[in-house]
């Protein structure tokens, strides 16, 4: 019984560990080396899905901390990724509070709004308060691919949830 509960706990912490690992390691979801315009913000897909489906396994404090780590590794001003992740949490929690049944289509549409709000905040802060310059086309490609890859990861995360954590939709 105790063994099962430890395994369940491990499964429950899987998404959070993945988020931390993506933020702190060299592993990235950026496949520019293979296909020059393909970049993806995998972290926001991960956060949005789990905040929407199982907020208890993605605590706000952990997401905030993962954002700080991401800033250090990427060389951005501290706190900027945390802010963008918190916007994702905010939209996700709002949608969760307002909706009874969610489908892949409704999650996809609401994810688009979360991504737009989060990226507007992220890039406007960077543009106004740092010396870093960005290519608008790159931001566009990044948003485009993140948006269009969402359903694929939605299905994968859903499968993970059904198999290892158990279904308990909003």
């Amino acid at each position, binding site marked *: 019984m105790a063994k099962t509960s430890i395994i369940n706990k491990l499964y429950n912490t899987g998404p959070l560990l993945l988020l931390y690992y993506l933020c702190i390691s060299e592993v990235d979801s*950026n496949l520019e080396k293979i296909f020059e315009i393909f970049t993806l913000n995998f972290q926001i897909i991960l956060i949005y899905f789990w905040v929407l489906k199982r*907020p208890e396994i993605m605590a706000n404090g952990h997401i905030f901390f993962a954002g700080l780590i991401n800033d250090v590794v*990427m060389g951005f001003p*501290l706190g900027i990724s945390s802010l963008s992740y918190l916007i994702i949490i*905010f939209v996700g929690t709002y949608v969760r509070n307002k909706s009874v049944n969610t489908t892949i289509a409704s999650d996809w549409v609401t994810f688009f709004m979360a991504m737009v709000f989060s990226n507007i905040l992220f890039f406007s802060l960077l543009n106004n308060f740092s010396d870093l310059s960005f290519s608008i086309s790159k931001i566009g490609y990044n948003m485009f691919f993140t948006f269009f890859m969402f359903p694929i990861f939605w299905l994968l995360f859903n499968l993970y949830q059904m198999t290892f954590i158990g279904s308990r939709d909003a």
Partner: protein
Amino acid sequence: MSVSRDDFSIAFRSALLQRGGAQKFSVLSLIFLALIIFFLDVYGMKFTKPVRSLINDIVYRVTFLASAPTRFIPEVSKDLTSFFNVREENKKLKIELEKFKSLELNVEFLKDENKNLQKILETEYFNKNLSNIVLAKVLVDKNSPFLKSIIINKGTKAGILKGMPVTKNNYLVGRVVETNYLSSRVLLLNDLNSRIPVTLDQGAQAILAGSGLNNPILEYLPEDYEIIEDINVFASGKDGIFISGTPIGNTNEKGEVELFVDPNQLSFVTVNRNIKKKGDF
């Protein structure tokens, strides 16, 4: 109508302030905390610099350790391939060695000639003092779509300052843009924020600007200048940061500059401490 407005405000407030269960902090409190950290970092209060430097050093080391498994697999496959190709490689190397032996004599002669000419011109002879060259290991090479940079394992402790040029096999790679006590961040030449003055084979001056993609481009070329393939690009040294004549790359058919060193394949680099010009980078 008023009911739906109430619903909206309840859901909105709940999303911002909700706590309990696994959520020990509300979104609103964390947003405030993130904003405070952000502005403290951006406006660089006196105490934030050493704190940020310490955090950077710790996180970079952890990143290096966390990335070890991802680095191990490609290394093993590379080693296996080179093991099977060792005979063929030996043959090739023998031929190359012969070629280099003959070239070495030529280089010696040119070196002496160059020294003598510089003496004649009474220019300051730049002595490449090896003690001023610091070999550094690349700790983190996270491929970000927005910032092309690497983290190296040498910082202010090793005498590294902001702005110092970074090379690999004498080819220019980038420059130091952030220093911590035990680590530094190097901005690569292909980053969108990178701008350096360069000289082309025929003596034309230009600015090498990072495009955010693999190959940087040439800007501010002389009017009516037509870029052809295979023009060598060197640092002009006009900014007082880079050593003039440091090779960078050559032009391709699209007019971009193909770097001599692949910025995605860096494992060791050298930092030149001879240049110590401070400035805003």
